[in-house]
């Protein structure tokens, strides 16, 4: 009745299926097998790499971000040099874990941040935060909260990659850096030749709001609204007001004639399925959440007569991953404190950077396993749990090198649209521990 190939799988009566017949790749990918790239929120799962003992090279369907990420994380030379350190000296993993536990135990209010890790790492980080009464905040929170505050205030109508890919006949990109942040966005999502609803590539109209290079792949921008990053919020407020048919007592918005903005709204109104997309880090103004609210209002207005949806872009550095795990385990997003024993969410009070600068916390645990995420400079006792190339450069009280999900070990990450979670297989065998193992070890010592 039980067992078969896996003691954890119980069959109530039919015989077990042999693992091989499921046709699913096992844990490691070798040669030119497509792997999932963990280095930006798109999580492209078609990247061909060749993984050797000494290095990992991207062979096909890579981008600047993935080539750099795989090269750094895949460098065996760096991995060999990486060992846990306590106050700069090599130490055993066990001692480093004990030293970390001691720092957290002695702290009145530790901050757990960085949080660039996979689902298992986030699960372990939250269990640890609960145990030691820490404040939890992600390195990307300053940008992320622009979206989050707008979302919590009114919500929005949104969409995901495959919907945008197949249905969007008009795409408005707010900010000119979307391609720099998500290099294959236009190639894979906004510009493919084929579509479920028979939408030809030539029929897609792209509007770029912002000053910067044209996307290098996909269809060229049909319309450009050239404004500086600091004026994006004025433009989206104008678009939302036009869509809502509010009177605007000005001939220009951010130096752009109103007629140009009307043309954008008309394009969206005439679309079968419009998409408005942005990356929150591009909205570099105070109270950028108001700009995000304006985008949400614009989209809501358009849905009165046609379809339109927002596509906020994120997910890089595991921000959506750690956020999702925090939400489901505790009910709350980042900037939550466990100090009182109850979880308490406060978007300003528990801003990790602010607390660090203001001396409101007295120890820092920084987790950075997905590319380049250096810890903030601080005189406080600091523990760094990071990928080997990160740890090598870090000047911390305790530094523990761990594997990169999708390179050294399998793991789960949440994609740019928050809906899809992908499993990343290991590229090659690795002796580095997982962040989750180290975090669990620390928790057990407290």
């Amino acid at each position: 009745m039980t067992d078969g190939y896996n003691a954890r799988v119980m069959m109530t009566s039919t015989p077990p299926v042999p693992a091989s017949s499921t046709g699913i790749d096992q844990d490691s990918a070798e040669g030119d097998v497509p792997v999932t790239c963990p280095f930006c929120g798109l999580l492209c799962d078609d990247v061909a790499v060749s993984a050797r003992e000494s290095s990992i090279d991207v062979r096909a369907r890579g981008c600047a971000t993935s080539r750099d990420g795989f090269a750094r994380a895949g460098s065996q030379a760096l991995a060999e040099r990486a060992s846990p350190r306590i106050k700069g000296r090599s130490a055993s993993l066990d001692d480093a874990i004990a030293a970390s536990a001691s720092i957290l135990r002695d702290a009145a209010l530790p901050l757990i941040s960085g949080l660039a890790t996979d689902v298992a790492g986030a699960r372990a980080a939250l269990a640890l935060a609960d145990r030691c009464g820490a404040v939890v905040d992600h390195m990307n929170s300053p940008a992320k909260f622009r979206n989050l505050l707008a979302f919590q205030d009114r919500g929005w109508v949104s969409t995901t990659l495959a919907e945008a890919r197949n249905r969007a006949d008009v795409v408005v990109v707010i900010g000119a850096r979307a391609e720099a942040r998500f290099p294959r966005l236009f190639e894979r999502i906004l510009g493919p030749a084929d579509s479920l609803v028979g939408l030809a590539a030539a029929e897609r109209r792209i509007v770029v709001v912002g000053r910067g290079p044209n996307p290098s792949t996909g269809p060229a921008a049909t319309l450009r609204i050239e404004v500086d990053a600091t004026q994006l919020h004025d433009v989206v407020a104008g678009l939302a007001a036009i869509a809502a048919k509010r009177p605007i007592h000005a001939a220009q918005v951010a130096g752009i004639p109103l007629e140009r903005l009307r043309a954008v709204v008309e394009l969206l109104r005439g679309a079968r399925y419009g998409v408005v997309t942005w990356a929150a880090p591009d909205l570099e103004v105070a109270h950028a959440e108001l700009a995000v609210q304006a985008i949400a209002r614009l989209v809501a207005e358009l849905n009165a007569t046609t379809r339109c949806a927002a596509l906020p872009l994120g997910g890089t550095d595991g921000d959506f991953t750690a956020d999702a795990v925090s939400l489901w385990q505790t009910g709350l997003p980042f900037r939550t404190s466990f100090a009182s024993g109850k979880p308490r969410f406060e978007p300003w009070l528990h801003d990790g950077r602010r607390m660090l600068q203001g001396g409101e916390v007295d120890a820092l645990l920084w987790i950075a396993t997905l590319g380049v995420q250096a810890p903030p400079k601080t005189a406080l006792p600091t523990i760094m749990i990071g990928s080997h190339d990160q740890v090598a450069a870090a000047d911390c009280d305790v530094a523990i090198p761990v594997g990169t999900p999708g390179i050294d070990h399998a793991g789960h990450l949440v994609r740019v649209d928050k809906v899809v979670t992908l499993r990343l297989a290991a590229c090659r065998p690795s002796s580095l521990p997982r962040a989750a193992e180290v975090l669990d070890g620390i928790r057990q010592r407290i």
Partner: protein
Amino acid sequence: MLTRLAGGRVFDPANGIDGVVRDVCFDDGRIVADPGPGAGGRTIDVGGAVVMAGAIDMHTHIGGGKVNLARLLLPEDHRTSAYARDEMLRACCGRAAPSTLATGYRYAEMGYTMCFEPAMLPVNARQTHLEMGDTPIVDKGAYALLGNDDFLLRMLAAGEPQEKINDYVAWTLDASQAIAIKVVNPGGISAFKFNQRRLDVDEKHTHYGVTPRRVLQALTRAVHELQVPHALHVHGSNLGIPGNVDSTLATIEAADGLPIHLTHIQFHSYGAEGDRKFSSAAARIAEAINTHPNASCDVGQIMFGQTVTMSGDSMSQWRNAGLGRPNKSVVMDIECDAGCGVVPFRYRDRSFVNALQWAIGLEIFLLVRDPWRVFLTTDHPNGAPFTTYPHLIRLLMDRAFRNEMLERIDPDARAASTLGSLTREYSLYEIAIMTRAAPARTLGLADRGHLGAGASADVVVYRDDPDRERMFEKPQLVFKGGRLVVRDGKIVEITTGDTHVVKPAFDRAAIEGSLRPYFERFLTMRLESFRISDDEACECGNGARLVVHRCCRPGAAA
């Protein structure tokens, strides 16, 4: 070690035991036949108490993308419902949109040992399993959503044969690690992406030309032919719209006599009569259930107070977005697979509409004659949070209490309802059917929901309190897989529940031959990335065991 629960009054409908005083014995996680005196082990005196199998919630939104959206949307809910960590439990929060930890803790404390997430988007299945993995103590399973995915609608538009649809349905169960198939607003979620705002049972989808009736026929048949134990789980067309009773009756007929489960049927039992063009159609719905032995339903009872509605039905949720309290909402189109919508609601007893919704749910409970075919749900959290179940049980069991509550609601709604004239009171035996035996039977869980030898030792002991709300709120003892997890309503051990799935046989090569080019042409991940292996399901489940249930027709010998 053998455990003997001695002297309790046992309610075990699957084995025909109705309040008989007898011992219940279990050993090594399983119920065993009474080995007689002198067998050793421990004996726990439960004389005077009521003993039942662990309760099973067959429709509760406990995990997945829409639940996390609701959590994010409602810091209001969480400020007032935060729980501190202690030596046993971790800090968590939430009432209407509880965290996974709060969900597991609260369910176990109420004597529930299994919960089924009824709306798992296949494309979001991994997250759903991860969330269920972080839901402690209770066993879990999920129903995969189909019927608005472009792949199926294309197949139907192209007139593909039923065998191919069956393969696709079985493949989806396997790839997403599900135990049943659900359809939400058949075709309507997809139609909304093409700017259709309503889709009745015989209206055509503007792009694919397929009707909801055709979707229902294809899926009820597939589920039946694959011998998936649970009937197609149907969230019908036109949710919440006055007069939608006709759509619901048409939906039942669309099954052509094949098994069909109508979920949260309260939201689909509305007439359009009276001054306010909103009336109860509970009698017509109950009559339809009573006369269609192929049909079952769960109620989706509403309770007054703050909650949040979360649904795959983006078309309906967009329509309802303006009713949100607090005034905010999320609507999503999802990955050529499905959609979702989250709208917070505050049901008020002084609102005519809300009060009548409350009465309609209770009317259905009392008018459907067969407790094996009507399940106790609030469609958590859409009608109310699951923590209101003890109150709901009292409403069903205690007519005087029910009438007292009826006096408090909007007087016009009271006048528009027959509730005051309904004298039925549920018995403990019937409650045990609705919350244990029947959910296990409909889901094909041969070793759950009962106390016969061989069943999992999920056992609940209640003090026999005439106040049934108090009785069901705080069981005296809860055993999960033979381990004592709750004593006097307090958790004493945290365990990891199992994950329950079915895996009907299908032609993988044939269906993947069609799916692979579809994924490559249109979707944004590879077929291999979509599928969840058995090992991965266990990993997502935090080390949960994967329990694969047999596919066979209900009633067939095991």
